[in-house]
């Protein structure tokens, strides 16, 4: 166990070494590898431990894993206000290529939560992904933008957080915890869920928010998981998401696809 953890490697990669990655080699490679595509903003921080646990579990069962941060997020280069959706998709492809190089095989599966799922699905062709497991993928970009705006407005007058409400502040260029640019606002507003027709599975939390409510096309294939991340609740901004049912479901589906 110790030697495997010892072999886990944090590193920077990509053309300008701007992307942070964390590679989890598998004890015995079973032919496929898994790319974990993170969600964005505060959701990325909330999911960090869950992604780490998932990476450990997959590596133990023979699937090497690469976790990574998009440009402008986590430990990657760039400021939060530079975050752009097309760059996220390009980063998925860059990370998939890095994973192929490291594990030496060709089959790459992906897992993503929220916008991480959308990124994996939208970049599946350029990243040459062979299957995607999506958890609470965004089905309605307009609803997501409204949700982030609403949460940001609610934050200013949250007396559980502030001693005094701050309604006078202009926070129109922020989403919870992060500065964002107008371009990202527009890019996410028009976002719809892409089903590339490849092997895919749709995990859905017990209570879904407006932005990730399953649409007609996916409702029938939805696998409900007993987890309540409360993506739209400002009381949960600093709460890590931990869920064994979610981990079990994601691992099972990815192993089936492998």
């Amino acid at each position, binding site marked *: 166990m110790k030697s495997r953890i010892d072999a886990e*490697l944090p590193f920077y990669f990509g053309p300008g070494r701007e992307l942070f990655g964390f590679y989890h080699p598998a004890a015995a490679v079973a032919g496929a590898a898994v790319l974990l595509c993170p969600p964005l903003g505060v959701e990325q*921080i909330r999911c960090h431990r869950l992604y780490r646990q998932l990476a450990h579990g997959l590596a133990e069962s023979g699937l090497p894993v690469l976790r990574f941060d998009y440009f402008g997020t986590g*430990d990657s280069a760039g400021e939060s206000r530079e975050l752009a959706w097309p760059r996220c998709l390009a980063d998925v492809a860059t990370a998939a290529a890095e994973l192929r190089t490291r594990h030496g095989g060709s089959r790459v599966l992906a897992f993503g939560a929220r916008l991480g799922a959308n990124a994996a699905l939208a970049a599946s062709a350029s990243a040459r992904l062979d299957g995607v497991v999506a958890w609470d993928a965004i089905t309605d970009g307009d609803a997501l933008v409204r949700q982030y705006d609403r949460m940001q407005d609610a934050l200013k007058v949250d007396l559980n*957080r502030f001693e005094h409400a701050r309604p006078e502040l202009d926070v129109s260029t922020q989403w919870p*915890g*992060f500065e964002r640019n107008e371009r990202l606002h527009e890019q996410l507003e028009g976002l719809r869920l892409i089903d590339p027709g490849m092997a895919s599975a749709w995990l859905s939390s017990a209570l879904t928010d407006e932005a990730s409510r399953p649409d007609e096309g996916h409702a029938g294939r939805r696998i409900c998981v007993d987890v309540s991340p409360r993506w739209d609740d400002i009381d949960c901004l*600093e709460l*890590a998401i931990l869920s064994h049912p979610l981990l079990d479901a994601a691992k099972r589906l990815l192993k089936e696809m492998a």
Partner: protein
Amino acid sequence: MHEQAFRFGKARHLVGVVGLPAVIDHGVGVIFLNAGMVYRVGPFRLHVELSRRLNAMGYPTLRFDLSTIGDSGASGQRLSRPDQVVADVREAMELLKQQSGCTRFVLFGLCSGAQNAHSAAHVDPRVVGALFLDGYGHRTLGQRLRHYLPRLLDTSAWRRLLARRRASAAPRPAEPLFVVEPLPPKVVREQLAEMLQRGLKLDFVYSGGVSRYFNHIRQFRECFGRLADHPGISASFFKDADHTYVLTGDRQRLLDHVTQWMGRHFPVTRPGT
């Protein structure tokens, strides 16, 4: 960007990111400790933003995860948690020294990170400064008067309290894990006095998010007495900000404060970029 990721420590159980300025003047390096259970990027990426700003000013930095937090594993040693934290910080200083040549260090910690920074600063002579965000402090008579008196006379506060009582029947998420287990005030004062005697520069920053135990800059003197007059110690109260600096404007004001404090106490002779 001159950042490099490392797995380090004798047991290679720790994970961190070193940030280097283009030119290093072998002054001080800055080490970031976890804020509660948040991994090394800090709440809302605070540690990333601040470390890069410090790199631009010429300071090497290391943001890392303590044992069993974030991406770091267990050390395998049988140490108490406080001893393990000090051991981890020592490993972090060793890494930053190897990478930058720095032999003196400033620690930065928010909440339990401040508590851990306090412990490490107290025992390790290589620590020459520390920034404690919502760190040690204790309730005083003044704090209680300032907290309760206005509320007694405020009808809207009573309404909010009653509404909260009613709402408490509904399930609420667990509180964030940002609780500092306090040392007794007398011990904190003695340890701070020892640090100041050793020449450490110490900065305390309190936010409005911890008004349950700190709600006015005057309280710093109420807590620490004559220590508050020592030229090596300073305190600020960011009354408007919340505990984790969720609004970017508040975060920028904090970053400005920290960089000015660093420049004042540990000036860089050859700026980084």
